[in-house]
C-alpha cells in the first residue's frame, strides 16, 4: 500500500484569480510581507500496487488523464510506502 500526495498547480503564465484575491485579503489583514500567493489542489490518495515503480506509473497516468488538466495545470507528486 502506498500513500501518494499529488500537487496540482496552475501552469506558468496562466492567470490565477483566486491567488490574487487572497493576497489582497492578507494585505488588508496587515500581513504586508506577503508576496505572491498561488492556489492549487492537494490530492491525498492510497493505492495498492505491485511495486513503487508500478504505483508511480499508475499515478502518472491518473494525473495525465484525470487529476490535472494539461491545458492549464501541471502536477508533481510524492509517494511513500506505508
Amino acid at each position, binding site marked *: 500500500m502506498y500513500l501518494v500526495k499529488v500537487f496540482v498547480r496552475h501552469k506558468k*503564465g*496562466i*492567470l490565477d*484569480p*483566486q491567488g490574487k*484575491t487572497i493576497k489582497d485579503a492578507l494585505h488588508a489583514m496587515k500581513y504586508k510581507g506577503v508576496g505572491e500567493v498561488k492556489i492549487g*489542489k492537494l490530492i491525498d490518495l492510497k493505492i495498492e500496487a505491485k511495486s513503487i515503480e508500478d504505483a508511480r506509473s499508475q499515478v502518472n497516468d491518473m494525473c495525465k*488523464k*484525470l*487529476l490535472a*488538466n494539461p*491545458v*492549464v495545470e501541471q502536477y508533481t507528486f510524492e509517494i511513500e510506502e506505508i
Partner: protein
Amino acid sequence: MKAAVIVFPGSNCDWDCYHTAKTSLKAKAEFVWHEEENLNSYDVVIVPGGFSYGDYLRSGAIARFSPVMNSLVEYVKKDKGLVIGICNGFQILTEAGLLPGALQKNKYLKFLCKNVKIRVENARTPFTNKCKPGQVLEIPIAHFDGNYTADKETIEKLNRNKQVVFRYCSKSGSVSPASNPNGSIENIAGICNEARNVLGMMPHPERVADPILGGEDGEYIFSSMLNSLKK
C-alpha cells in the same frame, strides 16, 4: 430530424434542452444516458448544461470519461451532424479535446447568473447562418467556471480560422473588459472546431427561445442549426 440530449449524472438542463429541441429545432428529441454508445442515428447532439458529477475536481473532468464520449468523438470525426455544448457541455467538450482551451473559475470568484450581450463574430457557421455579422444577441449566462483560457498559440489559431463565434460585448456591440463578466480571454463566449460541426458556448440559448421567458435571441442559434441541416 432527430436530436439527442446526452444525460450525465448531475446534468440539470437536460429537460430544458429536450423541450427546446422539440419546439425550436422541430426535432424528435430523445435522452441518451451517458453509458449508451450509439449516436449515429441523430442529426443533432446536444451536450446540456448542469453540474455533471457535481463539477467535482473540475467541471466536466469526469464526464469526459463516460462511454458516450467515445461515440461522440466518432460522431464528430465522421461529421454525422451538429454538436452543440452549452455551459457544462462546453466544459466537457474542452476536457475531451473536441474543442481547444479550458474554462477556469470566474474572475470575481462568484457564480454569476444574468442576461449578457454577445456579439456574433462569425455568421457563416451552421449555428449562426441566420445572424448578421456583428449582430448583438442577449442570452443569459449561469456559471462559476466560464473564464475561457488557452495559450497564445491556440488563441491566434482560433482567430486565424475564425473559430471564435461569440464574444461578450456591450449593448452597442463593443468588446471591452467592461463588458467581460468572467475574465475570458478576449471576451470569448463561444467557439467552434475547425470543421464547424461542433459549437461550445457558455451562455444558455435554450433559456431565451420562448417569449414568455422574456427573450427570444436563442432562436437565432436553433433556427440557424435547423436551416443548415435542411440543406
